[in-house]
């Protein structure tokens, strides 16, 4: 038998995924031949898993304690202590006033004054303000952006650590806003942008209940007493949870549920029909589909390349060999070998943030546009700057014409077409609106059509948005697409220009530009869609999600999900497919890294599963 130290080394290398094939074979032989070796292996792997789980629990507990201490300090300062009256008495330190009172008691005679004080105290107790009628059910944590507490028909800005009482609600407004509702038993409800939670209820001997009026939540429910399940209600459905993880989305047209762990009971309010939705299944309640849980598509972890610190703006060359990506909120663009992950060049000639990147159709030119009001053309093979075009406003989007002879550049209020062979030949179209970073828009791949979310669309939850289509050749409006529920956060034209993907809420509406009508609506419980990309042949769509560490692939013909690419950070964003649709470029980001204030971000290249 091998010495213990060799066995320990083999086990550790294996568990750290560092063992060579020869070392794995050696370990296997030992595990089969020696029960003692197998026991040591089981013990080491057991220790790893328990260490991970105990650390996670303990770290959560520490956060919770720090959080409660912060509330305690806050409540003392505001004289609104959340503890019970008896606890409050114990927790309040002796004040100088009580010290003086004790002195007077001694001076004036204990019996007489005590009687007077007793009577006075009794009167004050009976006349005390009754402000603690509603019990505290939960607290707010990780408040980000515009978050309000709803109470008695009004709303007030929410703060970290704020207590939520029975009858109150929470509203999250805006793209970058989010909050976590945290219950004392560890149950968490993560609320995403444009979400309204109404009417928290519960208490001792009563199960927790919340109403998701609109939006998206991810629930992590700790085991509840059997007779007190958590009830998550929407106008269409009730979800009964004993202890599980799930995603729940409610929009005007449907309620969608995805169970990540355990089993939950979903009831359709209109007819009282109930189904159980186990882990790995989803269910939709709307006016048209039967209530039947459907298995989620297969999941894949097929990253090829991850570029940490990069985000959002990226492009893959037509031959799939070069990945261009901009650093997070930066002016620098790097070129990477997509096969090896080696950085080939750093393009550092822009002076402000790069907003758009595109390869020419033949892959021989890379164009970058920036807030510095320039477009720069590069040789992607050498990383050399070829030429710079200047503009009177920040550059927001660009694309090459289908024959690569011209570059179409979108700035604040203009679309300019530059003939690359003769740069002095420029054709300008003045737009009726002035685009800025606040607008959502997309330029068709041929540069002939601009889609813009109507600037008058309300930013409040429940808004109905409109998209305007602008014919850039004729410089006139082609039409509008109205009635889109929820905030439109992303637009993307199909490569052939026949479809427009409109991402609004948890839905991607595919608009047939030729027929002027909806081709399909792709709905899934992945939460708010953050971005979409069409495959080169236009048969597949990839969607990224604001509150999901995954990218979803859809079959456009059937409207069904084909696969889920897992292993992203907290949120994902689909950018572009590679050649022949075999690879996909996405962005991902997280702001939950321990001790990190800034976002972690990455651009990732995935190998896609075969169909």
């Amino acid at each position, binding site marked *: 038998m091998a010495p213990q130290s060799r066995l320990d080394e083999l086990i550790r290398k294996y568990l750290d995924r560092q063992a060579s094939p020869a070392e794995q074979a050696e370990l296997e032989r030992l595990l089969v031949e020696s029960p003692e070796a197998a026991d040591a292996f089981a013990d080491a792997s057991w*220790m790893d898993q328990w260490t991970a789980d*105990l650390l996670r629990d303990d770290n959560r507990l520490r956060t919770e304690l720090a959080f409660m201490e912060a509330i305690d300090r806050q409540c003392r300062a505001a004289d609104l202590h959340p503890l019970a009256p008896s606890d409050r008495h114990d927790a309040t330190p002796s004040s100088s006033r009580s010290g003086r009172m004790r002195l007077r008691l001694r001076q004036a005679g204990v019996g007489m004054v005590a009687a007077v004080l007793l009577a006075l105290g009794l009167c004050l107790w009976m006349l005390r303000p009754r402000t603690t009628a509603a019990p505290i059910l939960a607290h707010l944590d990780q408040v980000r952006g515009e978050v309000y507490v709803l109470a008695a028909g009004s709303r007030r800005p929410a703060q970290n650590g704020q207590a939520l009482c029975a009858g109150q609600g929470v509203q999250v407004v805006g793209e970058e806003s989010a909050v976590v509702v945290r219950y004392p038993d560890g149950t968490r409800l993560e609320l995403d942008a444009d979400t309204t939670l109404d009417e928290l209820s519960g208490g001792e001997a009563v199960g927790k209940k919340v109403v998701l009026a609109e939006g998206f939540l991810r629930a992590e429910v700790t085991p509840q007493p059997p007779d007190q399940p958590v009830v998550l209600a929407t106008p269409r459905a009730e979800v009964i949870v004993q202890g599980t993880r799930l995603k729940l989305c409610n929009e005007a047209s449907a309620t969608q549920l995805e169970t990540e762990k355990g089993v939950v009971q979903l009831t359709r309010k209109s007819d009282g029909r109930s189904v159980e939705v186990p*882990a790995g299944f989803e269910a939709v309640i709307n006016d048209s589909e039967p209530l039947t849980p459907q298995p989620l598509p297969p999941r894949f972890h097929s990253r090829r390349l991850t570029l940490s610190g990069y985000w959002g703006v990226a492009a893959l060359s037509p031959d799939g060999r070069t990945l261009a990506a901009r650093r997070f909120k930066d002016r620098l663009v790097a070129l990477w070998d997509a096969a090896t992950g080696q950085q080939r060049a750093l393009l550092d000639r822009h002076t402000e943030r790069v907003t758009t990147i595109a390869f020419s159709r033949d892959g021989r030119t890379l164009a970058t546009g920036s807030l510095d009001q320039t477009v720069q053309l590069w040789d992607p093979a050498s990383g050399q700057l070829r030429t710079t075009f200047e503009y009177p406003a920040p550059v927001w989007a660009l694309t090459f014409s289908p024959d690569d002879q011209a570059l179409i550049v979108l700035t604040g209020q203009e679309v300019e077409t530059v003939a690359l062979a003769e740069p002095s030949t420029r054709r300008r179209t003045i737009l009726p609106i002035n685009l800025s970073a606040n607008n959502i828009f997309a330029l068709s791949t041929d540069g002939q059509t601009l889609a813009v979310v109507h600037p008058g669309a309300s930013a409040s939850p429940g808004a109905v948005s409109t998209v305007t289509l602008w014919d850039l050749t004729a410089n006139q409006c082609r039409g509008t697409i109205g009635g889109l529920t929820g905030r439109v956060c992303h637009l993307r034209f199909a490569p052939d220009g026949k479809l427009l993907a409109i991402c609004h809420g948890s839905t991607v509406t595919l608009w047939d530009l030729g027929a002027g009508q909806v081709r399909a609506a792709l709905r899934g419980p992945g939460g708010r869609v953050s971005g979409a990309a069409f495959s080169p042949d236009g048969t597949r769509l990839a969607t990224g999600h604001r509150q999901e560490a995954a990218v979803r692939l859809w079959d456009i013909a059937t409207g069904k999900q084909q696969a889920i690419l897992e292993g992203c950070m907290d949120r994902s964003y689909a950018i572009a497919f590679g050649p022949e649709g075999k690879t996909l470029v996405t962005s991902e980001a997280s702001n939950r890294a321990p001790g990190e204030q800034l976002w972690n971000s990455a651009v990732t290249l995935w190998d896609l599963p075969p169909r």
Partner: protein
Amino acid sequence: MGERHEFLKLLLRHETDIKAFIGSLVLDPHLRDDVFQEVALVLWLQFDSYDPHRSFGAWARGIAYRKILELRHQNARFPVVFSPKTIQAVLDAYDRIEAAVSRKAEALRECLKELPDSSRHLLTLRYEDGLAAEEIARQKHSTVNAVYQALSRIRARLEECIRQRLAVE
């Protein structure tokens, strides 16, 4: 509702042990969680056949063992490097150590609390965040070897702490 509650109670109590067994064979943490989900579903569907006089952990590991073999059989690229014979040996080992490790869990909990913050942070990066030693080294401006050595020292300290705590009981 009662049966489901009983099932959830047992599943949650044994979740880490089941994941440890699966994770010893399926090293990718995301894939391990996927397999665990599938196993949990089978456990629920077959809960009628569970004999409450037997160890739930052993029953669950048996089902996890069959699920891993099934996945391995269905997909030749399923990332389990061990042969069925070795997987059986690991399953047997987990059954043998079950009683001993059930006492160790509480000791480990206390021992983790005694670690200095720097050690806890390193363990958190490695185990909770699932970072490879290379990534930890990059974050800490250190070398991969130094990270391995530090982790090794922490593990040895935890083992010693557990041994002492169990000896006192």
